[in-house]
């Protein structure tokens, strides 16, 4: 059962608005709390990487050389494209009321996400073949931890997209009644957002 709310506000909502537009993001606040929690974890993780690097710049710079930068850039493109597809899917459903089109865009997003996983697996296979693991040194610990933590998010995001795809095809979402679709889409964009920080931080900055 769903309730709308400003229920944590101890006082009733103030009168008459001046500006138009919603004050809340698309999707369910429960998902947004989750997104905020995840972003907080990632922020701490990114900061930990940056400060650990400051203790051993030479190591980090040397090891970074061994990363597959074109692969990382390709993955950025794939995730951005996936995110764009999902944004278009929400548009198709919520603005054009065209569920079939929305489902096709979602399928595109899932395909790009799958591409990301494949590229990432090739990269991992390469690193594992070189004997690299979490205990190799601090740089590889961070590289594997950060990217694998993100990798798992991509998988979770794709599971969510797959559910959304099935629901959209069945025509469950309509304009004004797309809470689930918007929530799942927001989560997927979060996965993209994290990679947008991760790629330059780990692969490029030196």
């Amino acid at each position, binding site marked *: 059962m769903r309730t709308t709310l400003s229920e944590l506000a101890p006082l009733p909502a103030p009168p008459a608005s001046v*500006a138009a*537009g*919603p*004050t*809340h*993001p*698309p999707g369910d606040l429960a998902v*947004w709390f989750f997104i*905020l929690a995840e*972003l907080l974890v990632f*922020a701490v993780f*990114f*900061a930990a990487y*940056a*400060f650990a*690097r*400051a*203790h051993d*710049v030479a190591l980090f*710079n040397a090891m970074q050389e061994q990363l597959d*930068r*074109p692969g990382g*850039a390709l993955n*950025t*493109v794939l995730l*951005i*494209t996936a*995110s*764009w597809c*999902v*944004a*278009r899917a*929400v*548009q198709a459903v919520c603005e054009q009321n065209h569920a079939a089109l929305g489902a096709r865009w979602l399928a595109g997003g899932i395909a790009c996400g799958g591409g990301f996983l494949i590229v990432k697996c090739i990269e991992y296979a390469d690193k594992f073949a070189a004997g690299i693991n979490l205990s190799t040194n601090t740089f590889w610990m961070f590289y594997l931890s950060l990217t694998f933590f993100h990798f798992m998010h991509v998988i979770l995001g794709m599971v969510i997209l797959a559910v959304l795809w099935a629901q959209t095809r069945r025509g469950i979402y309509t304009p004004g009644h797309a809470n689930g679709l*918007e929530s799942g*889409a*927001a989560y997927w*964009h*979060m996965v*993209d*957002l994290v990679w*947008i*920080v991760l*790629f*330059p*931080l780990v*692969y*490029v*900055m*030196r």
Partner: protein
Amino acid sequence: MSADKSFALLLAATAATFLIGETGAAGGGALAGLLILMFAKGRLVVLDFMGLRAVRGYWRLLLPGWLLLVALLIAIAFRAAQSN
């Protein structure tokens, strides 16, 4: 801005990030450029993909604020690394 335009800008910014990496540039200038690109890209995702552009109040500021915070922490840490 539409999602399509943002998408095009995101691709361009990704290319720029990659090219900075290819030149092997290091130091303050490269770092600043990369952080600005990162913030710009993240902001586009937040505003146009997540759909926060039309939203007023906290929520619109929260995620760009997160990006800013992360960028700031990275900048501080990388500066500290340079002075080591």
